[in-house]
């Protein structure tokens, strides 16, 4: 794709040299290509894309994971033990949306999670980055401290925050005097509170992540742009929104994708807190509990997985489109 542009003889004829270029590979080269290409493709197909298609397929069946699958259609009003491994149509989806009590709360919790990341964690991380990037005293130290939580496993984050939130011995309740049996606030147990408590933990980590991404972006902004803006008499606020922010478009895309994906992937924190029940239901938890739990509902769990897949395809496709759009254009257009 890149080589032919250097060769003056082939400029203007971009199609022909491609084929010639591949034709020039020796037998040994072709073997190298086959191995370097083949092995990762095999792994990716078997362990990532195969299962993705599998999830879609299984979501149309009713299966408890024991015994085989068949192409028979499930019969209504037959005990489920005799009705195993059959084709169930869209019944799993229908049940999820209508009679599965955890489904809509989980969707709502995922949306709240996303909203907190978009409207709180991301602006906070961006603010950290902008302040640190101004080169104030101690900026390196601030950066290191704010980034520290990103290095910790989310499971550890959950354990560490337990000491802040615990009803009886937690730092927060002790400081505000609510640690006695009568008046204790159950931050992680009360289903009205625990999602927000866990979101504080998640934001604590996510803001540092966003900060580093924006720091990288800000460093790449041409200082002359800012100088020009300042010369034109804009203030710091205007300079940022009118000049710096638009230039950071690639970073904005990455941060947007990271934000959506991370909020859909959220699992570890709620699982370590209470296994994702009682106010902390998330789609990811429901998928997991339906397939690894004691009563395996493989078809049903897969349907929930497909819901998660469909939602996540939106940011994935947006990212891929914005990132790879220019790849298919000729190089000179960049």
């Amino acid at each position, binding site marked *: 794709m890149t080589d032919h542009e250097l060769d003056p003889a082939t400029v203007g004829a971009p199609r022909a040299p491609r084929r010639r270029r591949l034709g020039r590979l020796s037998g040994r080269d072709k073997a190298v290509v086959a191995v370097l290409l083949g092995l990762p493709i095999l792994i990716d197909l078997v362990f*990532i894309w195969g299962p993705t298609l599998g999830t879609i397929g299984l979501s149309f069946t009713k299966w408890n994971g024991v015994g085989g699958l068949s192409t028979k259609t499930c019969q209504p009003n037959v005990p489920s033990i005799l009705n195993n491994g059959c084709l169930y149509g869209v019944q799993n989806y229908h049940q999820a949306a209508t009679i599965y009590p955890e489904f809509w709360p989980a969707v709502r919790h995922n949306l709240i999670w996303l909203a907190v990341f978009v409207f709180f964690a991301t602006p906070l991380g961006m603010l950290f980055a902008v302040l640190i990037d101004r080169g104030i005293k101690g900026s390196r130290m601030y950066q290191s401290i704010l980034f520290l939580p990103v290095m910790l496993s989310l499971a550890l984050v959950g354990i560490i925050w337990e000491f802040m939130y615990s009803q009886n011995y937690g730092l927060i309740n002790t400081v505000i005097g609510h640690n006695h049996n009568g008046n204790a606030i159950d931050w992680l147990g009360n289903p009205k509170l625990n999602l927000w408590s866990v979101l504080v933990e998640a934001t604590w980590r996510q803001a540092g992540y966003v900060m580093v991404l924006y720091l990288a972006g800000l460093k790449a902004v041409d200082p002359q742009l800012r100088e020009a803006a300042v010369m034109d008499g804009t203030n710091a606020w205007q300079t940022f929104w009118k000049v710096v922010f638009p230039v950071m478009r690639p970073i904005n895309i990455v941060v947007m994708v990271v934000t959506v994906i991370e909020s859909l992937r959220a699992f570890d924190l709620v699982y370590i807190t209470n296994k994702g029940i009682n106010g902390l239901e998330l789609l990811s938890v429901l998928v997991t509990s339906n397939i690894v739990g004691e009563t395996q509902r493989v078809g049903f769990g897969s349907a929930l997985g497909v819901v998660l897949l469909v939602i996540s395809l939106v940011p994935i496709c947006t990212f891929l489109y914005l990132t790879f759009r220019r790849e298919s254009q000729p190089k000179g257009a960049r």
Partner: protein
Amino acid sequence: MTAQTIHRTTPRASAGGRRKAPRWGQLASQAFLISACVLWLLPIAFALYVSLRPYSETQKYGYVSMPHHLTLKNFSDAWTQSDMLHYFWNSVLITVPSVIIVLALASGLAFVLTRVNVKINVALLIVFTAGNLLPQQVIITPLYRIFLQIHLPTFLAGSGLLYNSITGLIVINVAFQLGFCTFVLSNYMKSIPDEMYEAALVDGAGLWTRFRKLTVPLCRPALAALATLLTTWIYNDFFWAITLMSSGDKRPVTSALANLQGQFVSNQNLIAAAAMIAAIPTLVVYVLLQKQFIAGLALGSSKG
């Protein structure tokens, strides 16, 4: 950065009365960042404090109280009573091979996709990148079944299956991280000037030589940055370990801690100490290789 600071203040200084504005701004920024840092350190500092206090003392005075004396005994107890060395070793056995295999496969793949005109190279890159962005739960159902189906010789997996084996965790970590590394490395490789490859070609270097002797050495900074990122991510993995392993004793340290939490439920000081111990490897990576880590994150996002 300094140039920009100077230019920020000069026009204001000439405007006379507004000279103080940036200084107030500086002060406000400092105050904001200092309070944010205190909030950010507080949970870790408190957990560390709990881990340093004897169980008897916190029982008597509560966790939020002045220390009478501090001890490292919780750390030694956590280490000996919970078999942490064993879990650490599991983490090493999973993380080190995974990182090496991912980087080897991803660099080979990225090289072919950027330097050989395979017709579908952009499509392939998209497929791999998208695979990395999927939530793990989207693939777990069939993956769990596949892991139960694949039989392995016992030297690779004590369980005889890919399920519940360290090999299985290596496989899934490799598969899952492959997309991100390929994406980053292919961006990096595109920046290597074509002239270098032309010269190598003139010298009669075959494709393998151009990969091994030319591309890999030039990609060393990117590989180092990715290795740091991958080590942290794979070490910190929780989901694969709890879904693709049934027996606790094969789990890596971060997910084994979830079990320890149940085991030591009455002694929170010990849990705090165990959590701190489990955090040590990533903190070491952080202190020693912070630059590489951040460089890796920046590489993933620097595509213009």
